């Protein structure tokens, strides 16, 4: 009688099963690893802005303090974005007619705000408060990275809950003294653990309850 199945049928079947199993494993692997990639956390992605404001020039080059523009960072949950008038404090006299600053001049003339595109985002159910972090020893560059080197801003850290908890579970690794909060060049010294513990006492930080759900979610 003629054979229904060719001699290689078994091989094909086994290969197909192995291939299917491999695909399932690959699929699961992608699903598992994907949220931790920069693609999902939006890290390291330059966001196009309506005005190509360069932090590298203004902060790194000219030495502007963060708070000149982000003025509510010590008082409010929201760090603050400068109103157009803040840009104009200098640019009414410097580079007044530069092509790059046309959107700023238009904003001033029409009375419409500049539509900045958000770079560092956390979901709406996270209530993050800048002021309480800044007042308790967390510096700008700890979470935002080396902004003074960024020609255009990208999100330097994952900003995932896991990443927030890394600090909330052990703040000592990340704290700095008051005079270094806005220092972009600060790096943790060799004895950071020791200094960190002292800073926790200095800032009177209550560390036991920093991981309560109601700290950040309400």
């Amino acid at each position: 009688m003629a054979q229904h199945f060719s001699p290689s049928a078994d091989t094909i079947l086994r290969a197909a099963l192995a291939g299917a199993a491999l695909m399932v494993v690959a699929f699961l692997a992608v699903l598992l690893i994907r949220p931790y990639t920069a693609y999902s956390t939006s890290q390291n992605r330059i966001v196009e802005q309506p005005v190509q404001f360069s932090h590298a020039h203004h902060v790194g080059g000219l030495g502007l303090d963060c708070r000149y523009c982000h003025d509510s960072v010590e008082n409010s949950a929201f760090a603050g974005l400068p109103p157009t008038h803040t840009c104009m404090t200098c640019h009414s006299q410097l580079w007044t007619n530069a092509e790059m600053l046309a959107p700023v001049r238009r904003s001033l003339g029409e009375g419409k705000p500049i539509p900045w595109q958000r770079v560092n985002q956390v979901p709406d159910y996270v209530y993050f408060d800048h002021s309480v972090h800044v007042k308790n020893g967390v510096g700008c560059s700890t979470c935002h990275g080396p902004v003074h080197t960024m020609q255009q801003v990208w999100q330097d850290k994952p900003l995932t809950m896991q990443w927030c908890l890394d600090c909330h579970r052990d703040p000592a690794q990340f704290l700095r003294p008051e005079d270094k909060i806005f220092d972009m060049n600060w790096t943790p010294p060799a004895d950071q653990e020791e200094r960190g513990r002292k800073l926790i006492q200095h800032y009177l930080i209550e560390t036991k309850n920093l991981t309560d759900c109601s700290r950040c979610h309400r």
Partner: protein
Amino acid sequence: MTPLLGRRQAALGLLASALTLTSCGEPEEEILPYVNKPDGLTPGVSQRFATSLPMGGYARGVLATTYEGRPVKLEGNPRHPASQGATDLFTEAAILSLYDPDRSRSLRREGRVDTWERFEAALLPRLAAAEANGGEGLRLLTGHLTSPTLLRLIGALRERFPAMHWHVYEPVAETAARRGAELAFGTPLTVLPRLQRARVILTLDADPLGPGPEQIRHNRAFAAIRTARRDNPGGLARLYAVEPVFSNTGAKADHRLALAPAGLRDFAVALAVRLGADLPVPALPEPAARFLDAVAQDLQAARGAALVLAGPWAPPEMQALVHWINDRLEAPVDHLPPPSGQPEDLAALAGALRGGAMDTLVIIDANPAYDAPADLDFAGALRDTDAFTVHLGPWRGETGALCRWHLPQHHPLEDWADLRASDGTASIAQPLIRPLYATRSAAWLLGLMRGRLSLESYAAVRETWAAQWPAESFEATWRRVLHDGVVPDSAATPLPRPAARAPALPPAPEAGLTLLLRPDPTVWDGRHANNPWLQECPKPLTRQVWGNAALMAPAEAERHGLREGDVVQLHAGGRMLEAPVLPLPGMAPGVAMLSLGYGRRQAGAIGNDLGANAYALRRQDALWELPGLRLVPAGRREEILRLQEMHRLEGEAQELLPERAFTDLLEHPLEPEPEEPPASIFKPLEPDAPVAWGMVIDTTLCTGCNACVVACQAENNVPVVGPGDVAKGRDMHWLRIDTYWHGPEAQPRPGFQPVPCMHCEAAPCEPVCPVAASVHDAEGLNVQVYNRCIGTRFCQGNCPYKVRRFNFHGYADGQEYANQGEPIVAAHYNPDVTVRGRGVMEKCTYCVQRISAARRQAEKEDRPIAEGEVRTACQSACPAQAIQFGDLRKAEAAVSRLRHEPQHYALLGHLGTRPRTTYLAQVRNPNPALEEPEA
């Protein structure tokens, strides 16, 4: 060093991946800063401004919380005498009416949109012509006004048009009270009772603790004389209530007698005779006679601190009788000079409309086409007239639809104004937001009529006060008054006690069934019918929502063969109205009560076609009491939506809300000092937590006014579900006021118990959540994490207090009731509180956003949270200060001290939940002469 991907992270990773597989990443978001940031404004930080809101023309001071120029919450102004830091439910709900999508947005001429210029072009020539005869054909109708600015502008208008007629109409008016004062004292004085100086109070169908412009003041005063504490055991005043209907005041009374209007009048006369009046002695039936003996004795023994009150609906002769009684008792009452100006009434206006004696009618913020008495047929007169009719109002409503011109008016929160409280204290109302629509103010219209073409209300108010304050310090005074919310030393000085004339006999009410009309406890006279918070707010005692009903005694209903929900035809004075019947124990026999404010046709999407319109039966000679009522069953039924049935707790009323005399409690406290806490599978809480939040609610002080219920709804973005879902028991109130009835059915004594989340230390809702969305934080709060909740609702099932609420639909998120999904409504949300989506459980959080804000502020300033720094929304709102919230770790905090009072107990404490919200039981001060043995 934790492993690269723990098991939990893997699970989360899979979940996140699966969910975001279809999308390309997080949605882009824009940040729009200011172009020129206003001085003193920090984005993300709220600012508070003082202003005032009118009710019946009288002011209540408020402090408004705004975020970047958008008000989201109103609280009381501690400096204002009519507020004293608290609010009532109408004030709390005003924030939603500001953002009502049904507010009038454009000027209309006979229903079609038109322009302000064309209106001015039509009006101004008419006014110029009217000057020729002194404005004889010009008539103005307003509500009751206390605003010095508007009164001044009307006075100025009178100078231009000396023959102009000014009419004032309020559905809940003071005319009877003024007439009564005139009968008693010769002039229509303002009479202000001072409850805080009384020891014995008798109300004769009066409801000082119930809704009205004085509610907050009276509740605060009442709380001051009814606070039962260990160190003040003899300090309780005694309250007697004699009334035909069941009011909040009657519910709090130590002794209550239900009498129909005829019996009430006899009672009042008999009391006056007892105090020496020269009137014929009426015969009183036995229970009333015994009651009268006890009351008269008590009142006379407390001379100087004895007070009798008559309601604003009592006939003038009855009011005069009560003034005479108070005079004899030297009652703690202040007499203030009467307001100047004698405006005319609505009947004269209706007559002029019909008779053609007018050519121009201007109506400012009044709605007589809906709320005028039926026998005037004001709507018909308005429809048929050829006069040039103008209506200015924030809502178009029934009157705006019938007037030739409808002009949209600013909402009180958008406008400059000034107001007076009942004691004369003046305050300046400032706008909290730029007007949302192209609206104008009443001052503008009055200025226009006077001949000033673009009078801003800001300029008008400043002009008024520039005439009163010294010029050199005007700016400083202006800023101070705006900051404080009151004009200092502007309260009227009480007159020396005038002698009351000998009283005349009040007219005897007709015998037979009588229909009583009363203002509604949640929509007042109907002006708030389109406010969904107020429609969904349960009425005290009946707990009815989204409608009204004809209330009557159970025996009365049975006599007519009626049960709850049967629709009945109310025939009175040749008119008929259909309403569902709701038997209420404690109502007097021979009486039915229907509240005003329902049955509107043009209130808006929320308020239309709800309930029965009591104004259809109201007559000028029978505004509050309609004798000769005939009840005819209509042969059909209507569901009456009542809330408490749906969240019944397991237990007897005596167990859930105990009620005792204070002397009993001192000997036998409700909770003897604990020896061993009951065994529990839960770990005890951290002994060294920095703060331990707790709440104590004093049910003796609670009068069921509902201010806390609406305050919580405003603060926490609690959605409205609409009558359909309420019928399924899905109401979303985080805080509810349960009513428990003690005593036999003939002599019911209701008690009010506000129930927020108990924040149990051993919370039954926590172990049953499969995803740990219900967790405990170190400060003692039971926290609901919305982003974890998957909607199993096991927590709601396991909660013995039934305080959890589930979003069965997207009530705030895509499936809003009626027009609540309009974009403008979203402006009322508090940005500090999450707006919950569908399928998520929510509940009272002890205002965790306020706790968090106080903690963050304290951390920034390196100090602990101060006592009293965190006040929950319900605590702030309560006029009686019945809710105390604070840190149990501090021995001197109110919550800690109150736990040692003998009437302190935990609701369902025997279950071992160890709730952080505990109660002080209801304490009464009964008169031994009237005490009945417990049935």
